[in-house]
């Protein structure tokens, strides 16, 4: 049930992207719509432009992280380091821009590059040194958390001297073109990343091997494919996507917060799982992950706007994760 397969039959890539999800993701998508309707009925303040944009904005960072980890999960692996990796990339970005005063594009590339490098390291631990992904990335998670604190001197790095940096996430190109639709650039970037990664997954060798490794790694190896190298490539790519998330969060906060990041990996993994990606590997789509991430943030925002006590918000989020995965399992039976 690879995306590429259905995509092919329908011709156009975008048609394929939607079509491949259509059948499989109907349920998740319907749940999302139900949530939106439910909250609209629950609070008159929920369904307003500014709140919808707030929801999208809240999805942007977790969404990009979830897209990155989707790749790893499709290979049958897991990446626990994405949260702190994101922070690490933000800090590196801060070092380049604030400490060294380099131009903005250099800082952005450095942040993304740092992610790619971290992914490369995780990939090497997993593919070459045969350390189980759970352990390898648990180690990376702690290493990167520590390094972020060390490099930043345990203080937030502010980007006040880099004008325009905060526009990466907070600005709105769409709002300039279409007045009255001030969708932040962070959200735009989330969707661009989603489209880009969906393309890579369905249309490139890297994507094909991502599914193949998750489906049957040994068969890939015995097909004469340099499976280790591709696995490292996938982790590197996922790392670069985390790097994008790092730049996004740094821009949104206009600062690199070195202590942040722990816990984000679980939230991203939850979004991936709600989106129907199997933790056993071999299956999953970016559209699903995107919907999963949206469900999470609609739920959080909606419960807040309805002024539900915070303790119960947490309970509801947990229940939704279990329900969503249960529904997905029932569908596959």
């Amino acid at each position, binding site marked *: 049930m690879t995306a590429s397969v259905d995509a092919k039959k329908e011709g156009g890539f975008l048609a394929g992207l939607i079509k491949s999800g259509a059948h499989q993701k109907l349920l998740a998508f319907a749940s999302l719509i139900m949530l939106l309707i439910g909250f609209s009925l629950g609070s008159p303040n929920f369904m307003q432009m500014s709140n919808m944009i707030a929801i999208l904005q809240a999805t942007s960072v977790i969404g990009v992280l979830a897209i990155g980890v989707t790749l790893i999960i499709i290979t049958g692996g897991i990446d626990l380091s994405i949260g702190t990796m994101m922070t690490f990339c933000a800090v590196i970005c801060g070092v380049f821009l604030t400490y060294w005063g380099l131009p903005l594009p250099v800082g952005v590339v450095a942040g993304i590059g740092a992610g790619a490098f971290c992914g490369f390291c995780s990939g090497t631990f997993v593919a070459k040194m045969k350390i189980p992904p759970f352990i390898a990335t648990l180690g990376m998670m702690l290493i990167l958390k520590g390094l972020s604190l060390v490099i930043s001197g345990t203080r937030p790095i502010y980007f006040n001297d880099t004008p325009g940096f905060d526009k990466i996430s907070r600005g709105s190109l769409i709002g300039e073109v279409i007045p009255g639709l001030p969708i932040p650039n962070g959200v735009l970037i989330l969707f661009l990343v989603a489209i880009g990664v969906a393309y890579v997954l369905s249309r490139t060798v890297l994507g094909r091997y991502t599914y193949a490794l998750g489906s049957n790694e040994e068969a890939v190896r015995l097909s004469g494919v340099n499976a280790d190298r591709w696995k490292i490539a996938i982790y590197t790519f996922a790392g670069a996507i985390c790097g994008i998330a790092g730049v996004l969060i740094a821009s949104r906060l206009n600062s690199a917060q070195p202590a942040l990041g722990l816990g984000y990996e679980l939230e991203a993994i939850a979004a991936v799982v709600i989106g129907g990606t199997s933790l056993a590997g071999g299956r999953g789509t970016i559209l699903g992950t995107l919907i999963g991430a949206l469900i999470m943030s609609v739920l959080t925002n909606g419960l*807040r706007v309805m002024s539900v006590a915070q303790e119960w918000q947490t309970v509801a989020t947990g229940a939704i994760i279990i*329900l969503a995965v249960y529904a997905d399992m029932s569908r596959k039976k």
Partner: protein
Amino acid sequence: MFSRRTILGTIAATALLTGPTAVFAEGEYVALVSKGFQHQFWQAVQSGAEQAAEELGVTITFEGPDNETMVDKQIDMLAAALANKPAAIGFAALDSQAAIPLLRDADAAGIPIIAFDSGVDSDIPLATAATNNMAAAALAAEKMAEFIGGKGKVAVVAHDQTSRTGIERRDGFLEKIAADYPDIEVVTVQYGAGDQLKSTELTKAILTANPDLSGIFGTNEGSAIGVVNGVTEMGTEGVVIIGYDSGKAQKDAIRSGLMAGAITQNPVGIGYETVKAAIMAARGETIDSEIDTGFYYYDAETIDNPEIAAVLYD
């Protein structure tokens, strides 16, 4: 399909059933976005806020992220709070800069903002209701110096190296020692994330490294309890412990003499003053821009004094 209908139904039910439990804003409504909500300290702030709300006949909501590193989560909370169009917002910023765009939105919408617990680096908040952490930590240093006779080695177990309260309490203590007590050496500052267990381990490590230590300052409730546990587990005697905030464990430690004393903020007062100032601002009354909510030093003798007991929490 059976399962599909089930889940959709359940989701809808979840959404609707939670409705009745929700507190709907009728009349004047103040949204408080704090730095946390699980911690006893924040619970005390919330109770103070609720007390004020009751007296003034308004409603409030109180929210905060799971831990004090989640800067972006707090901003999402602020965004959701804005959607509900409150009369005023109380806000304890984890990172002032990060919240500025939303504070501007609130300002533009004419919603007054009161900062609480720690200030916000911006001229948008009309007032700040907070403890003077530097001064409070300096008082802790003074008391420490008194107990150890103005000389010896001390250590600090701090709760955080990035948050403003963490930095101010640490620096308030260190600066006071450096300025007034040349014979006291601060051998180390360690960070335990306000986690009791981590702080316990840290304390034991500090004591192992410095057997001749005279005193330890724990900069918040979790840190202070961790220090007490660490000293107890090591069986070390004669180490002066100064804590911060209250809570049952810390109060017990002070009563039993394990802890010499502690600084307490006035969390109930912070919550109370924040809501009061917010409503006054919403009603167009003038308010002071600095609301000092006060702090006290307390020990086994003063712990039951009415003015102390009123601000301590369990």
